[in-house]
């Protein structure tokens, strides 16, 4: 049978589901590291998140009479929700987060492509403010737990906090004149792995940054290893799933803001903040490569994406340095999600044939 249709009759091999599966694959290294660091409980949390979100998607598929599980977007949402949980979180929390993400954030606006906020972030922020203490309770990764038991007890009061919360709390209580984050870690005898210690002696980078880079720190399941997230992110850029604009502008602008103004809460004035270290802490890498780049809620033009990334960087800096919460990535990205339609409205690609003809080169 011969089909007749409109041109083009060729198609690139891209499809929505392929993109979603590539994103899931890119998240796998971080997931594996999370399970390795925090134990099988972490895997359970992620599995529950994915199951809930896929089930919710299926149920809404029954209502809307279209089966949308195959496009893989529910899988990605569930995976991201799971990776944004602490490994010891009560299991009802990821269930609520996933269900909120799919049902409220995504489907009340019409399903895939219609939501204005990143579903996974929406789910995370919803449970973050609903169950604040449970969401702020983190365990040490296996690599640090052994050391912590033998080393000093000074961090006991903060055993459940991430390094960023640790800094914020120390900042509000302790004597901090002239210090920066690194010296505060040293001063408080923050646990550090043997590996980072010995590597630090070799290459001269402080062990706290190295631990954060390789993923030996407290945090959510998927956010701890900056290195593996970076690998996943570069994989996505190479496979052309995402463009470099958002992650690069986000990370660079955040680092610069932090370098210029980040010393102010410590009382050391401008241009004294840390440039690199904060990039590896909290959910910044996960956010920059996997959350902020969510197609649906980010601008469509390269220029718009740069603005979006710089906005994310600015708000992340603002929330982290001057907000009451230690973490600002989720809120910064959601805030920029709100601005996305406005960016798209005003930032347009340059149209072909709309320049004024150059008189010296002929033409009219």
């Amino acid at each position, binding site marked *: 049978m011969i089909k007749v249709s409109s041109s083009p*009759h*060729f198609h690139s091999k891209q499809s929505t*589901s392929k993109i979603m599966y590539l994103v899931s694959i890119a998240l796998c290294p971080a997931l594996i590291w999370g399970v390795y660091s925090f134990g099988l409980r972490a895997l359970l949390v992620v599995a529950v998140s994915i199951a809930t979100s896929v089930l919710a998607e299926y149920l809404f598929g029954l209502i809307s009479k279209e089966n949308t599980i195959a496009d893989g977007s529910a899988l990605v949402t569930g995976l991201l929700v799971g990776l944004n949980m602490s490994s010891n979180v009560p299991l009802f929390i990821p269930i609520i987060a996933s269900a909120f993400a799919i049902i409220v954030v995504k489907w009340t606006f019409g399903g*895939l492509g219609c939501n204005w906020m990143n579903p996974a972030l929406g789910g995370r922020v919803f449970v973050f403010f609903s169950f604040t203490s449970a969401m702020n309770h983190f365990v040490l990764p296996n690599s640090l737990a052994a050391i912590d038991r033998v080393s000093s007890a000074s961090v006991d009061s903060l055993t459940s906090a991430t390094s960023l919360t640790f800094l914020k709390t120390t900042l509000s209580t302790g004597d901090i004149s002239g210090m920066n984050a690194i010296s505060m870690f040293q001063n408080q005898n923050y646990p550090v792995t043997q590996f980072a210690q010995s590597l630090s002696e070799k290459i001269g980078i402080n062990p706290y940054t190295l631990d954060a880079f390789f993923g030996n720190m407290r945090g959510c399941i998927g956010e701890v290893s900056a290195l593996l997230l970076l690998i996943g992110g570069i994989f996505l850029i190479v496979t052309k799933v995402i463009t470099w604009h958002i992650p690069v502008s986000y990370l660079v602008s955040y680092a610069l803001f932090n370098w210029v103004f980040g010393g102010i809460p410590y009382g050391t004035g401008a241009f004294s903040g840390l440039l690199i270290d904060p990039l590896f802490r909290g959910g910044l890498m996960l956010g920059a490569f996997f959350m902020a780049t969510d197609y649906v*809620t980010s601008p469509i033009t390269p220029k718009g994406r740069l603005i979006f990334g710089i906005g994310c960087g600015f708000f992340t800096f603002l929330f982290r340095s001057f907000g009451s919460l230690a973490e600002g990535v989720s809120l910064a990205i959601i805030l920029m999600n709100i601005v996305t339609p406005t960016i798209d409205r005003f930032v347009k690609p340059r149209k*072909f*044939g709309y320049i004024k003809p150059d008189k010296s080169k002929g033409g009219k």
Partner: protein
Amino acid sequence: MPKFLTFKKGGVHPDDMKALSKGSPIQRITMPKEIVISMSQHLGAPAACIKQKGDSVRKGELIGEASSFISANIHSPVSGKIVDIRKVTLANSVSCDALVIEPESDDDDTSFESPIDYTGFSSEELLQKVKESGLVGMGGATFPMNVKLSVPIGKKVDYLVLNGVECEPYLTADYTLMKEKTEEILLGAMIIARIVNPKFIKLGIEANKMDCVALFNEVIERKGYPIEVIPLKMKYPQGDEKQLLKATTGREIPSGKLPLDIGSIVCNVGTVYATYQAITFGKPLFERVVTVSGNCISKPGNFLAPIGTKVCDLIEAAGGFAFEPEKLISGGPMMGFSFWDLDTPITKGTSGILAIRFDEKPARQTNCIHCGKCVAACPIGLEPTRLYNLIKNGKYAAAMATDLMDCKECGCCAFSCPAHLPLVQAFRMGKKLGRVKK
């Protein structure tokens, strides 16, 4: 590795698939039993038929006369008898009157072989000859050549750009022509140069045809023609005159204007060759090279066929179908028209006939995921996703106000859309309905 020029904005890289028919020389097909020659071979008004049923025609005889300013003459490609005048539907869904000619004998092939001395012709006389010969752009748009080459008083032509890009996948008609008729094409270019008097002559060829670049350079050096061959980086839609001019001259055609408005003229190499034949041998445009290719064709190749040959005759010349095709396409796969009737005749603009079946099932259409790939691919800088939403919601006037008319339906957006949205189809509909609503 030399740095090839190209246009900057947008564009996609489909598999070029040219290997299927690249090695095949131009073969003349055996004379079909029936020629169906429509009166709408070109852009603009259909030609007025000047023959009647039962009339005898000679090869190259005028059978349709240009009926308005933008229109072109049509000549009989064979000697024979007009057995019928009936309505036909062309591959691009245009329906019009067509003469059905039954060829008589195939062996009076000595016509149009003796050269005419044209050295004394003035440019007006040459242009008149172009008009009489029914030349149209053979790249697909079929714009009447004499209109293209009539430079209004006060306008100067800086660039004559010959288009040997052939960026559509599968098609090798221009490639084979450039390979076999290198000298003739250059002579044709010099003839056109005499008509329009350009400052520079450039020939753009994509990097997958470097052998042609070498051939041209060799002849140009030997004969001392003032023509510059420019190898271009492979990128679709470089064969479009807007992108080609941007790549070769750096000039941008303003929205809604013609190449002449920026002092340029673009001619497809097939047209240039036809011009050469028209001027040198007095041979009107009544046959052309057609690529017959696709994964359902037994022996893909390039065929010299009379205009009005039916698709079934061409496919027979290419060894018939190897598999049952899923789609028949007239032209290239990116901008060509799909059709279903094997009795459809080819026209002056038919560069290829493709019979394709798809190994993979097409992915399911999903909602737009706002990925921006269409925006990145659009060579014009439109936002296809926004236009699509406007058209889907019936806001045609708003779509027109968002420069829908600048879309040239190159298909880059729909090619790269991961949600598999029928973007180009929507734009076609939007343009039609938008015009009606105005």
